[in-house]
Structure formats: structure tokens, C-alpha cells
């Protein structure tokens, strides 16, 4: 087993991180509600996505996908705008990218040793991240969904508590 092929985190840890980040970024927001396997199985349709890569003793990707209305609500709240207020070009990419950056940085802190964090890339659609999902958490917010995936490059590996 090499350090590069295990998950840096458990689904439970990741879910707690994502929920804490959410309430901190959006202080007066309803919290995210965790979703479990059955309801979380369906893929998101036409989501906004962002990802960062972690490079070091462990190598992999942290990817965030959000339903479009959730991405819009997130952006408006982060910018201190009323829901539905018009957003400038690029605002959604930036906000969703920053969410991935903060989640990615916190995932990196769970890893042993040093690693570097890439700048986020964001888009709609954003090509699927390559690799195998070693950890995943799904949440809902006002009937919209958010999922966070931790992926490692596809190669023989062992995972720790994949969800």
C-alpha cells in the first residue's frame, strides 16, 4: 500500500467538514442536510462544478458538484446579494471555485506530510474528474443537491471506508 492510493478522509469526516464550511461561509443560512446512499445515488443533472488537486505524498482531486439553483443561491449569499439579484459574468465560477478551494484545503490538512493545493477550476459543465472516487458525501439544501467527491488517479489501490 502506498500513501497515494488511500482516501485521506472518511465519509463522515468529509461530511462534517463540508457542513462546517457551509455554515461559516453562509452565516445565516439553513444548514446542509446530509443525504444517505439510496437518495444520493442519482447523478446531478447539469450541475455547476469545481475542483482542486492536491499534490504531495498523497495525490488526488477534490471535486464539488452543485445543482444550478444552489450554486446561484450560494453565490448570491457569499456576495451579500439578495437571492435572484443579477450576478456579473464569472461570479458563479468564482464562488463555486472558492468553495472547492476551502473544502480542498481542509481535506489536505487531514493528510500526513506536506502537499500543495492547485488553484481551483470551475465550470458548467466541467469535464468529469478522472480517477476513482475514494470518498464521497452528499447533502441537500432547500431541495437542491451538493456532492463532494475525493478521487485518486485510477490505479490499483486500497481505500479506507469509501462511501
Amino acid at each position, binding site marked *: 500500500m502506498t500513501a497515494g492510493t488511500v482516501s485521506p478522509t472518511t465519509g463522515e469526516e468529509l461530511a462534517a467538514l463540508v457542513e462546517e464550511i457551509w455554515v461559516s*461561509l453562509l452565516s445565516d443560512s439553513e444548514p446542509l442536510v446530509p443525504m444517505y446512499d439510496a437518495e444520493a445515488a442519482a447523478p446531478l443533472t447539469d450541475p455547476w462544478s469545481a475542483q482542486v488537486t492536491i499534490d504531495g505524498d498523497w495525490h488526488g482531486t477534490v471535486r464539488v458538484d452543485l445543482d444550478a439553483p444552489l450554486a446561484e443561491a450560494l453565490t448570491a449569499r*457569499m456576495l*451579500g446579494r439578495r437571492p435572484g439579484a443579477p450576478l456579473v459574468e464569472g461570479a458563479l465560477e*468564482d464562488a463555486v471555485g*472558492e468553495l472547492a*478551494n476551502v473544502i480542498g484545503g481542509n481535506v489536505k490538512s487531514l493528510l500526513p506530510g506536506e502537499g500543495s493545493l*492547485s*488553484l481551483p477550476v470551475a465550470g458548467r459543465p466541467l469535464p468529469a474528474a478522472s480517477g476513482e472516487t475514494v470518498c464521497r458525501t452528499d447533502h441537500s439544501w432547500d431541495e437542491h443537491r451538493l456532492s463532494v467527491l475525493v478521487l485518486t488517479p485510477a490505479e490499483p489501490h486500497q481505500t479506507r471506508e469509501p462511501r
Partner: protein
Amino acid sequence: MHALIIDDSRTMRSILSRIVADLGFAATEAGHGQEALDLMAGGLQPDVCLIDWNMPVMDGYTFVTKVRAEKRWRRITLMMVTTESSHSHVVRALAAGAHEYVIKPFTADAIAAKLRLLGLLDPSGSALDAGALA
């Protein structure tokens, strides 16, 4: 009091600008370390810089070392605000000359508490010279 917000995410710059503005600071934004250095070389005199770590062109760590190398910028307070959250990152930033370190995610009151620790807020919780300006 003037705060220079240095972060490549304009969403994050907007969040931080609103927080410091609520505390009575004037705020200027820069998208990376080099842009911030250029603003300062052009005459901007911030009392405090809020600095992201990972940015294009020039990262926040390099920015801190550059500012600390210049005598004329010695009195500027430097505070990292970054998602980099390992023990060793905090140690490195402090060793390079940063005064404080806030890890993302943060809440508005955490930023205020750090600015208070740094002596930049008066006891009522406003930026030090905010009263004088009013």
C-alpha cells in the same frame, strides 16, 4: 484605517471587504501578491493586509517575505487568511513575518477578534481611527 484584501477569488475579496468595512475600515482589493505590491509601490498605505496563500502570479507567502524585506513597510500588519491549515504552514507564515493567521472557513466575528488582538480595533469594536473620521 485601511485594509488591503489580497485574494484571487473575488467572492472571497467581497466577503472580507464587507467584514472590514462593517468594522470601519476602508478597503482596497488585489487579486494576487504582485498586484498588491504594485498598489503599495504606487503609494497605497494599508494599515493591515489580509492575505490568501495560494494565488496566481505571486502567492501570499512570497508577498509577506517581500513586504518584510522593505523597511518602509515595516509598520504594516500582515494577516494570512487562507485555507492552508497545517501546523507547518502557520509556523512558516509567522516566521516569514506575518502577525496573525486565520484559517478558512472563518466567521465575521473571528476576523474582528483577530483585528482586536492585533490592536487595530478600539474597545467599542471599530477600526481605531473610525471615530476620528466620523
